[in-house]
């Protein structure tokens, strides 16, 4: 099993290296469709541009990664097999190769420069909300200003306050009558939004750190008490999108779930009106209960809201 002496060993190794790298590329291409099956891809599919762009950025990184992975593992496995100890195999006493080493340093740097450049091209569409689409909710004064928040170019978005608390999410929508927003409609756990409408979120916490995450609607954003955070989404497909708190917030962290239900703008308006009425009715009932409780116990102060 001695080394053949007819061909130049360096050239032979070079040819095999090309073969291995070529094979790696072919396998990477073959695996790519399987990757589509979802086992290798993050969630998206609500038609929200930020989630879709993150997903495509992820895919580009994945392809580059697969080629590197298969190439390096291929060379490693080949080296282990080819240069295993056996009769007649003498280890070459070489200490390095400056040109080769500079080459692979530059190669590694180049790959990262490309990935960085691709990230920058997508950054704007991921971070900054677009205008609402044609089929969206007509936004007239629905928006209320929150300094530092994200706004689409035309300044019109449905702005919802997301408030994390152990262990539930509270969503406050614009649309109350009072200027201070104290009678704004709200929901817990389930957020209802209109489709084709840019929804901007102000994310806050009233106790510990939480993290807002609906996988199909883009990334995570921590709710840090005292530091409002901001994100957005714009759903084009009606449906229910589920998620949960992503940052350890206490014992029932796993139970702190959230869902976003996307409906047509007309359904949304109807729902919001219904929600306002339901809250008003509940407030009236609570006030009545306080009065009757006050009468029963004689504690008049309880009846004073």
């Amino acid at each position, binding site marked *: 099993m001695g080394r053949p002496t007819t061909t130049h060993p360096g050239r032979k190794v070079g040819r095999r290296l090309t073969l291995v790298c070529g094979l790696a590329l072919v396998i990477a291409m073959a695996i790519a469709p399987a990757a589509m099956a979802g086992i290798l891809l993050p969630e998206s599919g609500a038609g929200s541009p930020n989630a879709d762009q993150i997903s495509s950025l992820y895919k580009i990184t994945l392809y580059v990664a697969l080629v590197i992975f298969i190439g390096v593992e291929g060379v490693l496995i080949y080296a282990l097999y080819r240069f295993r100890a056996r009769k007649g195999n003498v280890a070459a006493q070489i200490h390095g190769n400056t040109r080769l080493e500079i080459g692979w340093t530059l190669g590694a740097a180049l790959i990262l420069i490309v990935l*960085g450049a691709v990230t920058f091209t997508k950054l704007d569409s991921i971070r900054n909300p677009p205008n609402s689409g044609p089929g969206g909710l007509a936004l007239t004064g629905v928006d209320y200003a929150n300094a530092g928040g994200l706004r689409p170019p035309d300044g019109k978005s449905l702005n919802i306050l997301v408030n994390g608390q152990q262990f539930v999410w509270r969503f406050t929508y614009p649309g109350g009558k009072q200027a201070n927003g104290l009678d704004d409609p709200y929901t817990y756990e389930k957020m209802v939004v209109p489709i084709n409408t840019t929804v901007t979120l102000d994310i806050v916490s009233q106790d510990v*750190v939480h993290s807002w995450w609906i996988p199909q609607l883009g990334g995570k954003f921590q709710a840090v*008490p005292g530091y409002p955070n901001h994100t957005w989404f714009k759903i084009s497909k009606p449906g229910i999108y589920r998620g949960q708190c992503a940052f350890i917030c206490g014992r029932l962290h796993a139970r702190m779930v959230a869902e976003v239900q996307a409906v047509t703008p007309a359904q949304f308006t109807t729902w919001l009106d219904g929600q306002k009425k339901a809250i008003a009715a509940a407030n009236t009932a609570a006030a009545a209960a306080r009065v009757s409780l006050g009468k029963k116990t004689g504690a008049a102060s309880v009846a004073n809201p």
Partner: protein
Amino acid sequence: MAVATATPIPQIAAHSTRREESGWTSWFTTVDHKKIGILYMVTTFVFFILGGVEALLIRLQLGLANNTLVTPETYNQLFTMHGTTMIFLFVVPMMAGLANYFVPLMIGARDMAFPRLNALSYWLFLAGGIILYLSLFFSPPEGGWIATVPLSLTSYLPSGGVDAWIYLIHLTGLSSLIGAINLYVTIVHMRAPGMSWSRLPLFVWSILTFAILLIVAIPVIAAAVTMLLTDRHFGSHFYDPTTGGSPMLWQHLFWFFGHPEVYVMILPGFGMVSEILPVFARKPIFGYKAIAAATVLIAFLGLLTWVHHMFATPTPVVVLIFAMISSFLIAVPTGVKMFNWIGTLWQGSIEFKTPLLFCVGFLATFLIGGITGVFLAIFPVDWQLNDTYFVVAHLHYVLVGGSVFTIFAGIYYWFPKITGRMLSERLGKWSFWLMFVGMQVTFLIQHSLGLDGMPRRVYEYANVGHLQLYNQISTFGSWILSVGVLITVINVVRSLKIGAVAGPDPWKGNTLEWFTPSPPPANNFDVIPRVRSLEPMKDIRREIDRRTAGAAEPDPAGARQVVS
């Protein structure tokens, strides 16, 4: 009296020689770096087993959707204890233990620079571990190994568990700081004659960098946890948002320490691989200077990237971009090392002994951890992936595939030196393959769990999609991994008594520790050899060969070659 003499009067300086201590009490009084090293290694391995049991319980709980095996409270305690144990009580002190034992031997020194401080380091570390584990009998910490605030303030976690965690950080931190200064001084001042910086073994380079990182990072976490302690008990408001404190301050301080800590855990592993690969490939390390430079560069860049743990926090995008680019930059020297290691194997004559297998397992596995690290450095992608099982998979590929595999490589490589006996190759290979396969089965699928939306640190999940199946695969893998670890434990215990006698240099090593008998005597070297190259043992063997002119025994000091 005042007789002037032309020549100085010869003086006899009598030093009392310390008798070598023996008996079980010597383990408590020893200041010998080798005994302290053994204490470190054995103690950390016990903590490794404890942390492993916690991991198995975590995996059992997650083996079924909506499982009720442990309560949410217990689950949070389990992952907090698991993470804290593996980082502060296993990987970092294990590296310190290996450094303790082998740095003086590799640089041709007779002990560490400050032997008594060295003993203090160990006992502080042990005290930290005991305090953390005593909390098992009361209420263990449950705020995660990151002890996030405000959750870790008394309003949310009033129990003493968090305090035990704080004292653990204080004690192990002080231990690491003292140990790091000791290692630094030892390496800078006590190298054998002729051992210039360009002849310093790469493991010692990595330990020098490890020491510098600890000296920079430990004071920050020490201050941060002290502030947490005063917030909890003495009325300060550093972190409490309701009184003007800042939870973001904690995250910054914690990760300013936490990210260098990652390199503290992995760089010594890199160093061991750089020592072991050349020995078993029978070839010099490929690109010594590039590897040494990459080690230092990784450490420096590692101090600039902590914000990549905070991509989801309310932080200006320009800061996120800085963290992304600095994280990218780290990938370059890391990639260079990977290529250099493969270059070391290339055209070698590779002997597949267990230490080499663990090194190769490290190369194959760490590559995946490195690549997923690039995904996580791209912050919009990280917005999807952070705090999910994708990150859990990534960090275990780096820490199990990186630190644990290299520690096992080190154990198999140096056990003959420490004990004078060989470990069984047969059991070693079983252990390797089970650990290697178990590792992949446990953690590869966790990437998909994260991509499917499963956050980390949840005690239960709903039975939707493939979540339960993926989790079961992972739980199954964790048992394979455990059996692999168990076999090494058996191997070690067995070989202590019945292992083949190793002789001074069973692997034909390159570095000076193989110049000593196995185990080395208390003073390490009767004569400290002059170092003339990066591989002094090769020179010594060649010199002996030359002098004996091909006589019957080519090995130094009559090393008995053991076929195992």
